[in-house]
């Protein structure tokens, strides 16, 4: 079986009509497709950057508020200009895109437009037929990010049923992985792992930290490797990018991965992908697991330099804390959403639990959704001081 198809979907700038694309996302996933969803009200530049970093087979755009001829054409143009003409563009917008418009859009390089009244199954079939073929020889990358993106794809698709498969593409990648490692050996990259239960606000916290990293040093670059669960027997909705504000930036390289059948919060290919990212010249590499259960210990084999557990004050009774294994190994425990009523009690319970470990663990209280939250500032300082203030 070939690796799942990856597509990116989005809604253009000044447009919040997301009902169609939400339905289409759900339908694609049911048909085994992995969808990186970028959300609504998105600039051409954000879509193109994401498409290249995620190295998707195609970009699906849903546009309703007019200006679609220009918008689609601009996405095609910028993809080509960045050497990513192999990423195809398709989409729809109900009746707002007329047949004449569609003809013009196709002339400008758009692959396909779906009109009002097209069945959902038809669209999923199109994606399979048109974008489902295994990738042939890749185009020569025009930028370091694109090259990195291609390598990550080769690694990810090199795993089959959780095991590494040896194909030509993959062998050449592991070689280049090594080459990469030696050439960048001097650059200090710090790898930070974020984990914790679903709904604790990991993605928001990471995005807020990214803002501080970017402001702190105007030349630093950051990579984010984020994970979302695959639905059993189906594709996956990779939606973290959609909720990010500060990470839509050329200085951030973000890659979303589906767990593809592996339990524990990461994907079979995570370790290899992380290895590559850790030797690609970034100052920080942030890795985010899917929402994990109490017994999860996602970061093994010294995968990361620092482990951060993000928790929600609503973890239930105090007894539950004893069962959370990550509390023993995390370097920093973040209690997010401390604007909730239970926060004070939670903080002192967790603090107590940590003293049993007799290790130098830190605890930080944050409200990541708050603009310029002091807790997030504190966390940022902790992280950068631990890494020796390299940035």
């Amino acid at each position, binding site marked *: 079986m070939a690796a799942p198809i990856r597509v990116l979907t989005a809604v253009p*700038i*000044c*447009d*919040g009509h*997301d*009902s169609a694309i*939400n*339905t289409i996302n*759900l*339908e694609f996933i049911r048909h085994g497709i992995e969808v990186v*969803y970028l*959300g*609504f*009200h998105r*600039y*051409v*530049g954000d879509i193109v950057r994401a498409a290249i970093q995620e190295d998707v087979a195609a970009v699906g755009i849903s546009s*309703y*508020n*007019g*200006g679609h*001829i*220009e*918008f689609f054409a601009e996405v095609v143009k910028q993809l080509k200009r960045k050497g990513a003409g192999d990423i195809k563009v398709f989409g729809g917008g*109900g*009746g*707002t895109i*007329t*047949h004449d418009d569609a003809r013009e859009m196709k002339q400008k390089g758009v692959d396909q437009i779906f*009109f*009002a*009244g097209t*069945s*959902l*199954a038809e669209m999923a079939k199109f994606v399979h037929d048109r974008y489902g073929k295994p990738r042939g020889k890749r185009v020569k990358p025009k930028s370091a990010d694109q090259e990195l993106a291609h390598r990550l794809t080769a690694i990810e698709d090199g795993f089959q049923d959780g095991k590494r498969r040896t194909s030509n593409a993959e062998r050449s990648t592991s070689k280049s992985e090594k080459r990469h490692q030696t050439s960048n050996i001097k650059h200090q990259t710090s790898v930070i792992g974020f984990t914790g239960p679903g*709904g604790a606000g990991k993605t*928001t916290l990471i*995005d807020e930290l990214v803002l501080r990293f970017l402001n702190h040093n105007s030349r630093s670059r950051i990579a984010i490797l984020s994970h979302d669960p695959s639905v059993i027997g189906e594709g996956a909705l990779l*939606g973290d990018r*959609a*909720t990010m*504000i500060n990470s839509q930036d050329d200085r951030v390289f973000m890659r979303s991965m589906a767990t593809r059948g592996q339990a524990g919060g990461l994907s079979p290919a995570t370790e290899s992908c992380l290895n590559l990212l850790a030797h690609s010249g970034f100052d920080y590499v942030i890795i985010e697991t899917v929402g994990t259960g109490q017994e999860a210990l996602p970061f093994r084999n010294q995968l990361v330099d620092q482990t951060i557990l993000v928790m929600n004050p609503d973890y239930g009774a105090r007894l539950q804390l004893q069962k959370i294994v990550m509390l023993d190994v995390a370097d920093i425990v973040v209690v997010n959403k401390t604007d909730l009523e239970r926060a004070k009690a939670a903080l002192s319970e967790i603090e107590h639990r940590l003293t049993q470990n007799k290790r130098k663990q830190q605890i930080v209280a944050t409200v990541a*959704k*708050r*603009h*310029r939250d002091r807790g997030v500032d504190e966390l940022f300082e902790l992280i950068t001081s631990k890494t020796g203030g390299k940035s």
Partner: protein
Amino acid sequence: MSKLGAVVEAVEKREKFVLEQVQRARTDQQFAQQVMDRWNKIKSEIPVSKTPTGLPLPRLALPELDEAGEIARYLFGDGLPGEFPFLNGAYREMYLEPLRQAEVQDKKSGSPNGSNGKKNGARPPEEPTRLFSGLMLAEDTNKRFHFLSAHQRSKRLSTAFDGPTLYGIDSDADGVFGKIGEGGVAVDTVEDMVRLYDGFEIGSPDFSASMTISGPAPIIMAMYIAAAKRRFGPGVVANLRGTIQADIFKEVQAQNETIFPIEASLRFLLDMIEWTSQNMPRWYPVSISGYHIGEAGSTPVQQAAYTLSNGFAYVEMLMARGADVNVFGPRLSFFLDCGLDAEYIALSRVSRKIWAIGMREVFGADRRAQMFKLHTQTSGRSLIAAEFKNNLTRTAAELMLAYMNGTNSCHSNSADEPFTTPSEEWIRLAAHGQAILLEESGIFKHTMNMLTGSPGMKAVERAVETAILDEFREIESLGGVMGAVENRYQRSQIQNAAHRYEQQIYDGTRPIVGLNRYRNAAEEMPEIELARTSRAKQKLQVDRLMKFKKKNAGKAKGALDKLVKVVERGENCFPALLEAAEVCSLGQITGRLQEVVGHFRPMV
């Protein structure tokens, strides 16, 4: 925990109370007599008018009851139109053609003023028709407004803004050029606002403007006031009539036009509501909207439940800030969708009742603050591209349902809805649809509630009410509206319902004529007149804006600095917004506020 749980209890308690009254009327002689006397008095006071064919009909239709228990059930459970719990209508009279003097005096027992309290010779009631429009630049929309209102007694304009305006972005911002004037009118500055309503007497009682905008609503409201002052002087402010949508909860749940973090958005909104309810007594500063929730694909019950709970959440927040429910309460208004599903036979009726009970029993509001004043729009999503002229029939059926539900005003969609901002041809037909129903036909003009009260309607009411209360319990268990929002509860429920809706279309279980039934295989793409904004117009808008910015550069800086200070100090920022709106563009204000309070983190 929110007060939603208390609302559920209050509604259940009311049902019990009604049953007790029924029992009492059947067992307590004296009470029964009181009920009967009241009933007979009501009946005797209803004026009768004659149809053009000479048929005498009562202005208000009552059920034929002669048993005290059933009468009590009607009076306490449903209430007369204009009476608690307002199931039958917020007002005693709507839609009726004015009574001719002769008829009134014919009816000896009736008071000459009728029972509606309207003085003889008062102005005829305003038309409920409101057509939502906005296209290209301010002067183009202005022309459309004049076209639409040329034959109306009262000028009731409803304004649609373009994408950049809805997102608080200026027309000269990077990457938005192609969107200028699409799907609505481009407004960047107070000067655009002046152009937009040019030629209309903004302060007159015969004029009202409604503005469909929410994310940047307080800024646009300030611009509207600034424009009115430019034309008519500061005295005009207290006379301004109209509505601004401003409802931020439904943006987060369904329409996706939130531009500041939720807490900051709510604060700006509440600042505006407080200011306008004190200084603009005729203005509706928020239109609590289910339309967008419904159109995003929710079920009708979800639509009503989320809208009502959002409304109660605003009341709770305003009261927590110390505002008086009887001052702001009457200034809250509502906006619901009306589609073809069976729930729409009674959805708005039930919503009115639940609102009234919640406001009275839980929040202690008086009569005027209990009234659920409703604008309805027919469903855009029910209109499809295939054989699009069928959309006329769909809209007609929906209009009928909307008026059966006693809506206070209504927008009817144009048949070319799936394709474009309507052309003059189709919007004219959409307006005529309402005129035919209300003026030509005898369905509403003789008797306002001609079609209500059928056993079927009652059955829908019961089922819908139970389902709404179940939704309330679910939301309450998630910590009320805010808690549910943070858990993405409403969003994920709406998305699942939307997915099911589309699946039902393509598996044929939801019949759509022309699409999955009676499909015309030979149909070709119809010739549709598209309203698209030319590059020249888009450029004109950008040029005007740049000139404005240059002219006001110095003053703008001062106004923005002042605004920031007020925001940081936590004071009501609306007065500072009013000053800024005179000299700053929409994007300048939004941008500066975002520096202080941050950006909205998208919820998907």
